[in-house]
């Protein structure tokens, strides 16, 4: 554990913790020494030796020194723990902020708070609150043993012999517990997931019958957890029993050795009686080791997670960064390929999402990307926004590879409205203003009118100051998209990337998006992923991505050119205008299973 801990500390943190290890060692040594000094005191007292006064003075002095050292150790320990927690949390946050956006999958995101909070606390507690028992459990008995050896070698020899024996028992029992811990952990995670599933899927489970499969999934998981926990408790009790009995027998052996010496050499009575007392002090710190083991095991798991997180490489940042040309910017994809990679390695997973993708969006023009879901439309935008880097080829902004731009330069040139770009601020006004904090009310009114936010402002009782709720939960999908569109318009950037939200596919929002695109075309370079063909019929260029093979351009041109061609786009257009969404005709098909 100490290795796992120092692996995740920075220079200052490691220094602090090392300094604290010294403090703990000093206290443990002094404590052992004060225990040891009771031996000559008792010996002198029982024998009526005048040296008693000296020994007493020494004992009091060491006891006071122990207290002073402990005082320093307690304050130093608190400070070390707090600094370690604090600096590790800040470092982890900065590290997270530099990771590629693609790293944040739902599974990883869900465990992040736990990793960061529990991990930093485990790191903070490590030296000051776990090693204190561990070192105390080793150093203090060692000093006691040394003192005992000066008095009489026989009990000391028994103590010395019992040490490796106790250590072996300790290792064996903790190893046995480590082995079952993984299984209990898995059963625990499964049961928790099932309880949450049971609640989230409750409508489905209830409509399908309360006693059916849905409930069985939950009860099976709970039974599994119960079995694993029972096994865990049994093992833990047995392990504790093993170590505890070993410690008690070791003490009994020391006492027996002392008693034997006592019977053989009645002249040494005083010293040996003092040794009897000391044997109790020898055992006490060792017995606490059993308690520390469990705590340390949990700490080690947390530290390992932090270590893994810190070793995830961040998105590479250009050094030195190139400047962007002044004026309008064009956007070029040159022979771009992209495939998802496995979390552990860089090996691609599944077929490429994009392959040999070429596209030029001239400055100040509008290009739309359409195509079936899974064709890679959103990936094109994500690469342009550098949420991920292509596995081959280049994405060029104003002729500069986006990887050669520092983030401030890149995002200073882009306005981005993708599905996972959210509302983060409190009110509607704040969420729009965050695009350009110094904008005046006239500009706000202008973008509100362009994006359909004006209608919301008029309708909602608190108008501009309406809270958007957590992640915009108080607004509908269409309303959230309108606020995001207004924010992007206010940013007034040379390049705009827009991915229409599928959650906002009602006819009203469709019209607003079309109007917004029309309002901005010519002023900026627009790259739009569209789910509704109506919104982008006026684009300067329409790119149709195919799904067989995926990630290649099936056809491109203007709306009129593509319609005239009678290809895939024309078929999509025909289907869409005819169906205008789904239509429910219960009687048109008589099939009823």
């Amino acid at each position, binding site marked *: 554990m100490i290795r796992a801990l120092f692996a995740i500390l920075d220079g200052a943190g490691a220094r602090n913790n090392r300094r604290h290890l010294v403090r703990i060692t000093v206290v443990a040594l002094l404590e052992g020494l004060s225990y040891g000094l009771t031996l000559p005191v008792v010996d002198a007292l029982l024998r009526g030796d005048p040296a008693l006064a000296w020994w007493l003075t020494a004992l009091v002095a*060491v006891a006071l020194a122990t207290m002073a050292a402990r005082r320093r150790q307690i304050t130093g320990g608190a400070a070390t723990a707090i600094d370690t927690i604090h600096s590790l949390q800040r470092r982890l946050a900065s590290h997270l902020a530099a990771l590629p956006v693609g790293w944040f999958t739902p599974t990883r995101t869900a465990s992040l708070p736990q990793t960061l909070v529990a991990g930093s606390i485990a790191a903070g507690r490590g030296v000051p609150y776990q090693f204190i028992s561990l070192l105390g459990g080793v150093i203090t008995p060692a000093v006691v043993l040394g003192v005992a050896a000066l008095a009489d070698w026989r009990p000391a020899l028994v103590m010395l012999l019992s040490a490796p024996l106790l250590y072996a028992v300790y290792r064996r029992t903790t190893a046995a517990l480590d082995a079952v811990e993984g299984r209990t952990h898995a059963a625990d995670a499964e049961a928790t997931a099932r309880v949450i599933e049971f609640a989230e899927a409750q409508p489905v489970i209830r409509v399908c019958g309360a006693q059916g499969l849905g409930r069985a999934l939950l009860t099976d998981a709970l039974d599994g957890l119960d079995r694993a926990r029972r096994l865990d408790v049994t093992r833990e009790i047995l392990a504790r029993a093993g170590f505890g009995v070993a410690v008690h027998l070791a003490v009994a052996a020391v006492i027996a050795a002392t008693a034997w010496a006592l019977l053989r050499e009645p002249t040494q009575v005083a010293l040996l009686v003092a040794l009897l007392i000391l044997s109790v002090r020898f055992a006490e710190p060792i017995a606490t080791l059993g308690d520390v083991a469990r705590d340390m095991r949990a700490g080690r798991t947390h530290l390992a997670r932090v270590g893994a997180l810190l070793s995830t490489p961040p998105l590479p940042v250009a050094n030195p960064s190139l400047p962007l040309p002044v004026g309008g910017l064009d956007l070029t994809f040159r022979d771009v390929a992209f495939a998802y990679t496995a979390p552990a390695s860089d090996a691609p997973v599944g077929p490429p999402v994009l392959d040999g993708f070429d596209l030029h969006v001239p400055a100040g023009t509008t290009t739309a990307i359409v195509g079936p879901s899974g064709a890679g439309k959103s990936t094109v935008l994500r690469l342009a926004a550098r949420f991920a880097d292509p596995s081959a080829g280049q994405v060029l902004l104003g002729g500069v590879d986006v990887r050669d731009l520092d983030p401030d330069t890149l995002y200073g040139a882009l306005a981005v409205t993708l599905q996972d770009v959210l509302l983060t601020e409190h009110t509607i006004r704040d969420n729009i203003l965050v695009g350009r904090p110094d904008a005046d009310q006239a500009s706000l009114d202008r973008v509100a009118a362009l994006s359909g936010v004006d209608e919301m402002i008029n309708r909602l009782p608190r108008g501009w100051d309406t809270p958007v709720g957590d992640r915009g939960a108080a607004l509908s999908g269409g309303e959230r998209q309108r606020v995001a569109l207004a924010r992007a318009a206010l940013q007034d950037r040379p390049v705009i990337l827009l991915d229409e939200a599928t959650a906002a596919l009602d006819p009203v929002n469709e019209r607003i998006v079309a109007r917004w695109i029309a309002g901005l075309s010519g002023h900026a370079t627009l790259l739009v992923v569209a789910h509704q063909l109506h919104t982008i019929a006026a684009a300067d260029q329409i790119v149709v991505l195919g799904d067989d093979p995926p990630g290649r351009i099936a056809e491109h041109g203007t709306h009129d050119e593509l319609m005239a061609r009678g290809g895939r786009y024309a078929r999509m257009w025909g289907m869409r205008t005819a169906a205008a969404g789904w239509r429910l005709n*219960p009687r*048109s098909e008589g099939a009823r299973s």
Partner: protein
Amino acid sequence: MWKALRRAQHVRQGADPAAFHEIVAPVAGRLRVALALQVAATALGLAPFAGIWMIAKEAVEGAADPAWVWGWVAVIAGAAVTAFAVRLAAYTISHRADLAIAARLRLRIADHLARVPLGWFTTGAAGRSLDALHNDVGDLHAAVAHGRLDAAAGLVAPLLALGWLTAADWRLALVVAVPAALSFLLYVRSLSGAEERMRLVPMGIVAVTEAVSALARDLTTLRVLSGKGARPPESGVHAAADQLRDGLRTAIAEQEERGGRANALISPALTLALVCVAGTAFVALGWTEPVNLVLFLLLAVTVSGTQRIAESGASLRVAYAAAHRLRAILHLPTLPLPAESAALNGDRVELRGVGFSHEPGHPVLHDVDLTLEPGTMTALVGPSGAGKSTLAALVARFHDPDTGSVRLGGVDVRDLATADLYRTVGFVLQEAVLLRTTLRDNIRLAVPDADDVRVAEAARAAGVHERILALPRGYDSVAGDDAHLSGGERQRVAIARALVADPRVLVLDEPTAHIDPEAEAHIQNALSNLAAGRTVLVVAHRLATVTGADQIAVMDGGRIVQRGRHEELLAREGLYRDLWRALEGEPETTPAATR
């Protein structure tokens, strides 16, 4: 303090001893047995000290007889091991009691949730309460399995030791007892007085937890909004980490100030030095025999062990807070269920004078009358916020209306057993939920004994059979594990599930809301197959979806303002025609789809 910090990750305000005792009531007897064993073990645990004392006393008085000495050595070894074994037995019983409580509690919660109105699950509250569930059950552990046993040991051992010392020499016992008592008082005071400040620590932890979630969630947004003057994405976590550090400093400064002094008073080194100095003085004054010092050196440290009582008090408080939150879940209002389910007469659905509000004073439905004739399709349309989804949810009994009634086959749905209601009424909602089990079981969820032929038939009608067969393990693929289905595909599995369940009344709440238009076209047939021959209530955003309905109810502001067939409504002045013109363009008299 640090134990508290580790647990404090989930501690918020509110503690409830009554809730805790109610939860542990079923194992109260077992816990009492464990307590008795613990007291016995603690008393027996002092026997080795007695043994050492006996040997030492005899030796000092010069009468050490081998049989006597070895007899006591045997007692020491035997008592130590026996006391330890009895203590383990106590902890085994308390741990098993804890397991029984945890298992029981989880099941009780599941059973309770099965009776909470479905509407509760569709709000965010459900997620938050359940996230805490796991940790709350875990927080009970420290109190049930350890708390009282630790306290008992912390109380019994010092008292017995002190009694013994007092019997041996009351003056020297007083010297040992005074600092121990003082320390205990100081420690208790440090715990009680610091509570206000200690709260800063859990608050800081909650702040960091929330800031990290926000960072992960908002990173994309914050990154694209970066540029001159923008706040860096990590600033939220940095601020929260600073807050936690300040909270820890304040709480710990307080704790060190008071608890540190308490600790110092009973440190073993000081206690031993005190016994030696005072003992020597007493011997010099002739108040005590030198040999008595041996007994005091053996037991004085035990007298100072009272801190554990206060520490286990802290674990009890954590458990009380957890019990409080668990009870909140167990006390969620449930849907009243009839003693006996009434018999249905047909499957006409009638809503009469229905009013409903999510919050008192903000009604979302007013006096709604609507009849769904058997075998017909009724559509609810209207602007967003008109109350369409709420009305549909009442038919599926996600909530009960505040006024009026929802009747099925002439019977108020409140007079139907849950199973009887859902044998007749089924629904497909905006987002399909699949359980993490095989696709086969997902499809036959309502009819667990349905055979493969029936499952495949339903999947075919829902248009998802081919897709399932294309998976490496076909129908044995587990949703979410090795079957990663798109939103549209999941919705088709849900439709297949409804086909197997075969309810006579079907509620469809905009089942394509979260599906992109490409996938939407594929679902059209599946939905039409599902709707065929049933009594259907459908909520639609797009008016063209439901031009074929037998009845269209146009809602606005929680009321039905118009009703009729598409052609009739289009021919009349009113909201429907306005909506049609605004949303679908020019009036369309013949829907494109054939009827």
